[in-house]
């Protein structure tokens, strides 16, 4: 490797390895939480039998989450519960990493000097792919180690080889979709178009797999989708090393096409030019208009993700609830005075997930304000006759409104999902639960407003870090480690567990008060410091 190629490799390394470690951590913790809860949720052989009968035969469920095999074993349950979610998460991460490293650098004009150095365009691409692969390896290693450690627990009992087989299946998924990102970065510019094209590929692959898993007659269709190949790896249930072959072959083909096409296009451009907008949009005439214009598409995507999640959870709530109700956990809850039906217990978990999504949405969208500042775009707005405090406050309020609308939407869609799944849930209770799930997001929104006011450079990383930290604490405490003492530090701990429990005004008000307080302090501080640029 030449010096210049090594420099390129190093450039992408930080992002890919950091991301790889984070994603590996999340994947490991998700396995930990699911495997840890299996014995509590379904302690008896009878309840496990029920589980596999109810879910194993439900076509809609297997279309969404994949074919449920051996649900009466811990491995099968873990795989069924997590397989699709983790696969999609990993695929999205790898896709966005690839478009960030390739197309993002080119959009910023930083790729020009790489190409001007003594390396060929192909060398540059190879070096960039090498740093992505290093990140993926980091993800595999972290996941493998965590899952292996969990497997040692007597109650879990995964073998080391099945832990590494699982980690490798994630690695193969990441590799494949990173290469999809590499290829779409050759074809499309700027980055958001490249990411969107990759996202469409992922969506189509998921759609085909859904058709394949919907019924026995269409099972062959799964083989048309790479997600079907990944599903058939079936970690924690079987070990099929040959299953990696088609994934590896397709990866090689994608890499080859990318390497061939990279020299056929201009630096900074794709093969397919952006077409001119079909209709001229009204120019934004105030800051609200600008916010809608800049964040509108992102907000709608978050809403769609939120809606789909809510619909899925609502849809399976009745079946899941039946199993929970039959299990002894309901008896335990009853003894604790919580007369929740199984379905409501399950729905409370659904609203916790909704809340995690809302938290991520709120913090990331708020951090966009710091991005405006650091890029220097805020300078022009800040020299207009608008008070600087108003700039920050307005963004904060707009994000808060979006969070509330999102949570309302989640509540309504969950009840719609429950209805479609043949169950019944009071619409009012679902809306209440949705709104309650906004309270941690409003709290974090205030904190990020404060951070953006003080240290814009930290704002971007702070949100996901706070959400992750809370999530880790919840999971760690959930599987019965000594993290119990840390629970008060998690925002989710203070969220009322509606509909399983009852609405808790004090803790909800406290969360919102912390958010509003922090936000107001931020709004006070912000005009009292220098604006910063990169």
């Amino acid at each position, binding site marked *: 490797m030449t010096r210049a190629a090594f420099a390129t490799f190093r450039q992408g390394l930080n992002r890919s390895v950091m991301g790889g470690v984070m994603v590996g951590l999340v994947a490991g913790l998700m396995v930990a939480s699911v495997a840890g809860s299996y014995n509590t949720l379904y302690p008896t052989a009878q309840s496990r039998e029920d589980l596999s009968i109810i879910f194993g035969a439900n076509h809609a469920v297997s279309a969404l989450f994949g074919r449920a095999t051996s649900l009466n074993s811990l491995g099968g349950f873990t795989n069924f519960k997590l397989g699709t979610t983790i696969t999609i998460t990993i695929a999205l991460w790898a896709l966005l990493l690839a478009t960030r490293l390739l197309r993002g650098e080119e959009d910023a004009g930083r790729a020009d000097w790489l190409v001007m150095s003594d390396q060929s365009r192909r060398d540059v691409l190879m070096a960039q792919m090498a740093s992505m692969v290093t990140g993926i390896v980091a993800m595999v290693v972290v996941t493998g180690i965590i899952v292996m450690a969990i497997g040692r627990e007597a109650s879990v009992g995964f073998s080391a080889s099945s832990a590494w087989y699982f980690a490798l299946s994630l690695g193969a998924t990441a590799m494949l979709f990173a290469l999809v990102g590499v290829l779409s970065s050759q074809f499309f510019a700027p980055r958001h178009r490249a990411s969107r094209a990759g996202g469409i590929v992922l969506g189509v692959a998921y759609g085909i797999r859904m058709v394949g898993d919907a019924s026995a007659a269409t099972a062959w269709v799964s083989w048309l989708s790479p997600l079907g190949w990944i599903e058939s790896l079936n970690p924690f249930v079987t070990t099929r090393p040959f299953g990696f072959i088609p994934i590896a072959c397709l990866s090689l083909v994608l890499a080859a096409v990318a390497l061939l096409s990279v020299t056929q296009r201009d630096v900074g451009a794709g093969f397919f030019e952006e077409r001119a907008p079909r209709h001229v949009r009204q120019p934004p005439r105030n800051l609200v208009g600008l916010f809608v214009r800049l964040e509108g598409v992102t907000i709608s995507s978050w809403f769609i993700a939120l809606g789909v999640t809510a619909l899925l959870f609502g849809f399976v709530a009745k079946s899941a609830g039946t199993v929970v109700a039959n299990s002894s956990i309901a008896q335990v809850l009853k003894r604790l005075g919580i007369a929740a039906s199984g379905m409501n217990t399950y729905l409370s978990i659904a609203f916790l997930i909704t809340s995690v999504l809302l938290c991520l949405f709120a913090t990331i969208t708020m951090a966009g304000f710091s991005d405006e500042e650091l890029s220097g775009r805020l*300078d022009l707005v800040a020299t207009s006759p608008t008070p600087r405090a108003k700039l920050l406050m307005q963004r904060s309020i707009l994000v808060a409104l979006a969070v509330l609308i999102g949570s309302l939407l989640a509540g309504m869609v969950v009840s719609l999902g429950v209805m479609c799944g043949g169950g019944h849930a009071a619409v009012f209770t679902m809306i209440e639960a949705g709104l309650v799930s906004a309270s941690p997001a409003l709290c974090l929104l205030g904190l990020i407003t404060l951070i953006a006011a003080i240290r814009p450079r930290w704002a971007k990383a702070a949100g996901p870090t706070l959400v992750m930290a809370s999530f880790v604490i919840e999971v760690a405490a959930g599987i019965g480690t000594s993290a119990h003492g840390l629970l008060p530090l998690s925002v989710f701990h203070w969220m009322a567990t509606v509909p399983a429990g009852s609405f808790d005004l004090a803790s909800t008000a406290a969360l919102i008060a912390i958010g509003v307080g922090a936000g107001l302090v931020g709004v006070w501080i912000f005009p*009292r410091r220098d604006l910063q640029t990169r």
Partner: protein
Amino acid sequence: MSDFAIEAHGLTKRFGATLALDHLDLVVEAGEVFGLLGPNGAGKTTAIRLLLGLARASEGSIRVFGIDVAANPVRAHRRLAYVPGEVSLWPGLTGHDCLELMMSLSGRGDKAYRSELVDRFHLDPTRKIRTLSKGNRQKVALIAALASRADLLVFDEPTSGLDPLMEREFRVAVQEATQRGQTILLSSHILSEVDALCSKVALLQNGKLIEVATLDAMRAIASVRVDLEFEGPAPDLAAVPGIKVMEQRDGHVSLQVSGGTQALMAALRSTTVTSLLSREASLEELFFARYGPGATPP
């Protein structure tokens, strides 16, 4: 209302250990075109950001039309428009979107003049900022500022990305603004531009104001460039007070003369001068005399 467009008193800015601006006292009269000159890192951008209230002074105060910027940024902002050195706009918006947004935000502006400027600067406002070249992005910000018709226009190296034709167009627009009584503060490294536009300049170095004067006064105080041809070898003039020998070969000498020419004339009395050419120093020569290698600190 104050007669001064800008008044800075003891304006100081520290970034940690760096003293970016050191007790700057500066007055810009309304209607002036005022140039800020100085080498890289002299503190020009810092002074401008303090003026705009984007950064807060460590010490001292700055007023715009009598309004204390730190205490009353919004009132000050009603009177001014700004073009940064590195224009960064929203990549997904078109030039027209940006112009429209900035006009609405500033709450003032002349739409007819704006479309005239769009034509004169050859800007295609339908294109997205992402697809515009550096100079074209700069034009968007310049047009927005000029069309705002603000009382004070603040430009930080406004023409660093413009081609010579567009630079000329910029000079015309600045002259139009002056005729309307607008005040202009301009930092620049393009000395010919400052020479052509500015009535007064301030020279900054290491955060300190080292000189502020009208260009004419500066030329008068500063030096005159004198080229002499002699019959036979040239005499040694280096010892004459107020004279700096720039170049000397055979019978030719180039001099920089400051503080009057009497001493030079006296020294030349006993020589035979075949040709004498004298002209005012260009701003560039002033600049090099101040900052160049071997410059004498004032």
